[in-house]
């Protein structure tokens, strides 16, 4: 028998063999581990070789960045005509908001960033005051965007573009989370009326397409409401979008609530904690943490669904884009328009997704039973 290198109990920790670590080992293990794998690697490289240069060519190298019309672009270069986006950029951003008042949107956006910072980042300096400001922000932003009290009033049909997307998206996100939590708790309630109401609310709003809700908001409400009462179309859309997202949110959170072991509820009960205290301090923090991926999923879905408002005549970025394409100067540039809008949505949604990963990591106390 071979002589053991160390006596029992004296074996030191040794490094792993050198051919199992480092970049070469990684390539071997991940790209070239089997004949199929080698074929797939070669195919992927060929595919990228075909795609990337052509895309770069179209988007940058052979693209026209200046010009007064599509024909001018075409005369300069064979690729994308970004001059179109450049000329319409303000329209894409602000919709038909009066040009002199656009600083109000810029200011609201800056304040939004200031308000989000303490909400999203728990080590933000002066966080407490930041959170107060975040609570006040919706009113400040509403005042800035709508006017009144010293500012020129602006009608909501002049809202449009990315600004409209942000208004609907952020309002929906902010209100759907708390409403969703209440509905999820209501669905588990011992009180019959609360439970039945929650279930029917959720099932109704989940069971109908958002488009029909938007139609109801834009046309049918007029039949139901007493004649003479009008309230703003955008406000109705906001309410519908929020309720729609809340129903989804409630189900996501219910999943989190059910994933908690019964013992957590029992431990809280056995200590004599009141219902709302134990929900707030023990159950919801854990349930929401479990639900983060689903919650963010719902947020992203809601955010992208804002493009549906085009159907009832609100001019979101796609609406602005399509009306711009109708201009004879720029006709036929739909690739550029859709790509531009897609990039905007991608950046926002990718940001949300990354933030949720960061949050999950931060909240992992890592060691759930």
């Amino acid at each position, binding site marked *: 028998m071979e002589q053991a290198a160390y006596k029992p109990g004296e074996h030191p920790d040794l490094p792993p063999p050198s051919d199992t670590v480092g970049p070469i080992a990684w390539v071997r293990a991940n790209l070239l581990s089997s004949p199929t794998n080698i074929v797939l690697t070669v195919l992927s490289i060929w595919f990228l070789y075909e795609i990337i240069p052509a895309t770069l060519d179209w988007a940058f190298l052979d693209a026209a960045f200046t010009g007064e019309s599509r024909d001018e672009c075409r005369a300069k270069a064979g690729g994308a005509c970004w001059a179109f986006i450049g000329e319409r950029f303000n329209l894409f951003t602000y919709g038909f908001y009066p040009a002199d008042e656009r600083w109000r949107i810029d200011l609201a956006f800056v304040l939004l960033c200031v308000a989000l910072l303490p909400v999203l980042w728990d080590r933000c300096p002066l966080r407490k005051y930041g959170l107060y400001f975040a609570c006040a922000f919706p009113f400040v932003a509403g005042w800035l965007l709508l006017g009144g009290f010293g500012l020129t009033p602006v009608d909501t049909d002049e809202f449009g573009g990315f600004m409209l997307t942000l208004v609907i998206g952020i309002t929906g996100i902010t209100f759907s989370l708390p409403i969703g939590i209440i509905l999820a708790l209501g669905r588990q309630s011992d009180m019959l009326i609360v439970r039945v109401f929650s279930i029917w609310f959720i099932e109704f709003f989940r069971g109908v397409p958002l488009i029909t809700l938007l139609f109801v908001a834009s046309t049918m409400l007029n039949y139901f409401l007493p004649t003479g009462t009008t309230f703003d179309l955008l406000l109705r859309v906001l309410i519908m979008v929020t309720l729609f997202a809340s129903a989804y949110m409630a189900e996501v959170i219910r999943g989190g609530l059910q994933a908690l*072991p019964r013992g957590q509820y029992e431990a809280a009960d056995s200590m*004599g904690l009141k219902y709302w205290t134990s929900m707030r301090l023990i159950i919801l923090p*854990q349930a929401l943490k479990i639900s983060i991926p689903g919650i963010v999923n719902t947020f992203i879905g809601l955010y992208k669904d804002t493009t549906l408002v085009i159907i009832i005549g609100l001019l979101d970025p796609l609406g602005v884009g399509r009306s711009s394409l109708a201009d004879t100067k720029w006709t036929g540039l739909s690739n550029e328009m859709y790509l531009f809008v897609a990039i905007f949505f991608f950046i926002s949604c990718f940001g949300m997704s990354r933030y949720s990963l960061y949050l999950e990591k931060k909240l992992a106390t890592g060691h759930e039973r």
Partner: protein
Amino acid sequence: MNETADKSNDNPEKEIVIVIRKMHKWYGQFHVLKDINLNVERGEKIVICGPSGSGKSTLIRCINRLEEHQDGEIIVDGTELTNDLKNVELVRREVGMVFQHFNLFPHLTVLDNCTLAPIWVRKEPREEAEATAMEYLERVKIPDQANKFPGQLSGGQQQRVAIARSLCMKPRVMLFDEPTSALDPEMIKEVLDVMIELANVGMTMLCVTHEMGFAKTVADRVIFMDEGEIIEQNKPHDFFDSPQHDRTKLFLSQILNH
């Protein structure tokens, strides 16, 4: 109250903390607890044993109303358990409970686990609650883990935190629901040691456990349950040496000779 005390309480001077009279409980049609009568004196240590499914956990869970009973009465420290939430909350403040699976709150540190109820139920100021918590963590010998999360501790340490967490509410009665059943063998002792110490300082304890060694050293009374009934109760010495009932004999022979 003394006249209702059952015969094992031969000293009428002693204060009765828990009175259970003609208590029945059903799960749907299933009759889990049948005609339970039990008085617990202040400072008494009771061990409840019996085969699985005999209703012993359900019984102690009725005492802080984690389970509802349908007939009879349970009076804890002068408060009767009814549907009145006020009474339930009152009882739960005075009764601590330790679970088989610890049920620590994984998103809070050990210290926060211990201070949560004193701060929110007893409305103690945070500093005071933290001082008390550290005192009890010291007593269960893990003050150095105070700022860790439960998931970073071993099972035995978690259970000791759970005991400390209950003690922080300064309960008058402690309920233990199989506190060592989910532990690795080498960790059982550290938890039992804490429980023995607690018994020695005079805590009123009701303990569902299969640790017969613990029953012999600590218990004032051992209760044997089967199929929802209290079959037999006696001082540990008599209980183990001369069991009266056939079912008790069978049970003891099964758990002691393996």
